[in-house]
């Protein structure tokens, strides 16, 4: 079949059982090889240059583990498994499960993986805002070495990530968070399922005994070329008590730091206003979660 027809017609399918095998295949095929896990983006995008499909679901990279150092999620863990995980069911990590629950549809979540969502590097990648505020670290395997990339350094542009052609994302690590840390995630779409975010936000903050906030993280999705942190807004809240008026100012500041576009789903103006609203809602929810934690201890 001719690639000149712009048809997706890979001719090779591999099912390696080790990460070094995958890396070797990726080096061999370069741009013409693609890892495939759930296929929920690959088989929709149908890029014509792909000749070799490298199935990465048999590498033992589907797991969610918890230990003293935090949480480790294998890159091929499905969104459905993340959504249902007891390990991720409690605050502060539950924002990842909440995000997974609102992605795609129940059918797609049984196939789609967290690694796929991250590596596709869409502006609207719904797992990314939570990963950004949780200071996630991405572990990557390559031909000679392994390396780690901070979530904040991973998405470089629309569909552009920090991996080299021969590298594979293997694990997402979430460090331990201090006590009195609250998180929240809000995604707004047009319909209840199978919709890209119009805007999404994840928030994390720690409240000290004197009621001031530190380690404030506010990350937004679908409102810039990549998911991003609103660092100006974060600085406004850092070290301060989360009073009503300040939260409104923080949300307004966050809505100035984004670069939304107008497309068939929404106008830039709508996205900007929506972002301001959901940042404030998320901050209140995260603070509320800390208060609830305290009551329960």
């Amino acid at each position: 079949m001719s690639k000149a027809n712009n048809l997706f017609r890979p001719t090779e399918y591999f099912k390696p059982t080790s990460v070094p095998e995958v890396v070797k295949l990726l080096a061999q095929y370069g741009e013409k090889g693609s890892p495939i896990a759930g296929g929920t983006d690959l088989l929709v995008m149908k890029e014509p240059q792909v000749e070799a499909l490298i199935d990465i679901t048999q590498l033992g990279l589907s797991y969610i583990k918890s230990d003293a150092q935090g949480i480790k999620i294998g890159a091929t863990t499905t969104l459905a498994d993340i959504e249902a995980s007891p390990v991720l069911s409690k605050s502060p990590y539950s924002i990842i499960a909440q995000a997974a629950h609102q992605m795609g549809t129940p059918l797609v979540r049984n196939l789609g993986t967290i690694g796929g969502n991250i590596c596709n590097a869409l502006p609207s990648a719904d797992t990314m805002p939570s990963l950004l505020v949780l200071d996630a670290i991405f572990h990557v395997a390559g031909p000679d070495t392994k390396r780690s990339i901070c979530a904040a350094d991973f998405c470089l542009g629309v569909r552009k990530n920090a991996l080299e052609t021969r590298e594979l994302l293997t694990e997402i690590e979430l460090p331990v968070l201090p006590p009195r840390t609250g998180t929240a995630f809000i995604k707004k779409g047009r319909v209840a399922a199978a919709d890209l975010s119009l805007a999404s936000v994840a928030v994390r903050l720690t409240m000290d005994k004197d009621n001031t906030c530190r380690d404030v993280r506010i990350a937004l999705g679908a409102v810039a070329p990549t998911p991003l942190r609103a660092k100006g807004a974060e600085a406004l809240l850092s070290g301060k008590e989360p009073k009503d008026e300040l939260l409104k100012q923080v949300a307004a500041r966050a809505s100035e730091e984004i670069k939304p576009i107008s497309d068939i789903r929404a106008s830039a103006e709508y996205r900007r206003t929506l972002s301001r609203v959901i940042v404030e809602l998320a901050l209140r929810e995260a603070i509320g979660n800390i208060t609830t934690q305290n009551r329960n201890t």
Partner: protein
Amino acid sequence: MINITLDVNNERYQVEVAAYHTLRDVLRDKLGFTDVKNGCSEGECGSCAVLVDGKPVTSCLMLAAQAQGKKITTPRGIATDGKLHPLQEKFIEYGASQCGYCTPGMLISAKALLDRNPNPTEEEVRVAISGNICRCTGYQQIVEAIMATAAGMNK
């Protein structure tokens, strides 16, 4: 081309597939399982849904080669020994099927729901079928049929 063996509705089939063939393509076009519908090919409509190791998935987004070694159930496979599953009976009784195009996928999502949650709330039913688009019914009769099935099976 790759030779694979597929386990579909408890029977094994040998079939030759291309690397890019999806499970839906192979089930429908090569093995004759026309109960697996061809809708959007993008995982949005749910009409191609099948169970893979008990989990409902859009078969248009799974490579046929990836389905080797897994237990596949197509919509007709929820009936046993020629007897309709209670879900199928209730769909008929409640008028949950008009043109019928979404029905196979709806049955798969409903079967998977009741297998893991025999007593769902209406909200849980609606979430479970949120990946299946229906053009005709407005979903009400489908939801009622699934709730009635659960009630009947829990007597």
